[in-house]
């Protein structure tokens, strides 16, 4: 077998994301939103046969709360894939999460004005 010429470099990722998920359905983005904070529950043992990605999450999340988006970025995985792995861990009770706070409400100007008026008439 003769070969000549230089071999081109392959730079795409070796393990494709659908293999990491096993082709499973991805959870909705409402479940663990980008900015939901996650951390490992105390005194937990790494599940037997954990994949390299789960082990990486284990290492990352053992140091305190991290946002879901941060976990995905550190793993170099699409957020949806990291979310699936995180929700697996959450279901198994390995993960604590802190839900995203509700978005701030616009202030009701009328109400504030009434309060101000009330305060002024009471104390002024």
């Amino acid at each position, binding site marked *: *077998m003769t070969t000549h010429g230089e071999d081109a470099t392959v730079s795409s990722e070796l393990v494709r994301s659908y293999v990491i998920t096993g082709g499973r359905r991805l959870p909705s983005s409402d479940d663990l939103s980008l900015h939901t904070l996650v951390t490992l529950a105390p005194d937990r043992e790494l599940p037997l046969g954990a994949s390299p990605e789960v082990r990486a999450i284990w290492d990352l999340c053992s140091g305190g709360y991290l946002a879901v988006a941060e976990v995905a970025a550190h*793993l170099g995985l699409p957020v949806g894939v990291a979310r699936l792995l995180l929700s697996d861990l*959450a279901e198994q009770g390995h993960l604590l999460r802190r839900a995203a706070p509700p978005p701030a409400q616009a202030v009701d100007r009328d109400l504030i004005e009434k309060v101000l008026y009330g305060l002024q008439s009471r104390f002024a």
Partner: protein
Amino acid sequence: MALRKQNTDLRSVRDGLHMETQRLQSGYAALRNDQERALAEVRGDAEAETKDVLKAWMRSLQVLADQQQRSISDLAKLKYGNDPQILADLMTIDHTNSQFGRRAQGIAALCGGWLGRRETAASVYDVARSATGRVKHYDRVKIHNQVSVHVTATAVEPVAVVLAELLDNATNYSAPGTPVEINIQPVPTGICLIVDDAGLGISQEEKDRASALLNPQAPVSITSLGNPPRVGFAVAGVLSDRYGFKVSVDSVSPYGGVRAVILLPESLLTNEAPEPVTDTPADTGTPEVAPRVAAVPAPVSIIGTTAGGLPKRRRAVAVVPPPSVSESEQEPERDSELTASRLGAFARVALRERDTTTTEGSEDQ
């Protein structure tokens, strides 16, 4: 007396004719030999030329498939990662593309071409997962036994392609829904990758064909592989021969199907994890967005490499922002702006989150 003489004459004529026949026969045989040799030469030349053309052609396809995979990964990570529907669609495209790339690699291998070289070694487990991703029914493949041994960079693609061909056979020649197992088994001379299916097994004739293709004595003729071509064993034979590992399919799996075994010798294995390719990205928090609490990059240590060759990092301390920190303490950006700005954006979101959530108390579930 006259009769005796006539008899002798006839005998000598007969012997003469006999010799003439033999001469003609050997002449014919020589001509036929020449013709066959000439034909073989012409066929060989034609085959070699065809292979050269195909090789160059496949190379362009391989490069395109690789580019496509990178584009899909970028889209999945940077643009559509948060949308499960789009991400699932991207994965379907990625899966098809992987199979397409494998076909191109197979033809290239048969034509004496390259597969494309990986820059870093990869764990045997990741090579097995990579191979799994290149076949249609990847979801039926289960991989057991993770070992810490790595496959050298040069052998990553050949082993992945050969394993993928064996998995393709295993999944195609067994009932839908039955599992195909990969067992990774250390042996005294290296590592065995054992593929077991629950199909009907293969006939003696098939076994002979496989064993001839898996132990090639001469370059495989691409026209001898049938139409549609059955390239699996031929690809496995060419690649294992070129890179120095062994493939066999002559045993029976515990489920009654075929057991295919790849034996990787020590020379293709390494214990060293590959060196990280990228530098540590630094978090950046801008004063405009987070004026009260600046993002401080937690000390990060690289502990290994992910499946995709990216460095795995471990935070040395908990990521809790200190009450007040001056901006000047931030580390300057050392890596690509993209990664940094991405992480920065995440960090800002996370920090804003922390500021608000701490006042609301914990909502641990």
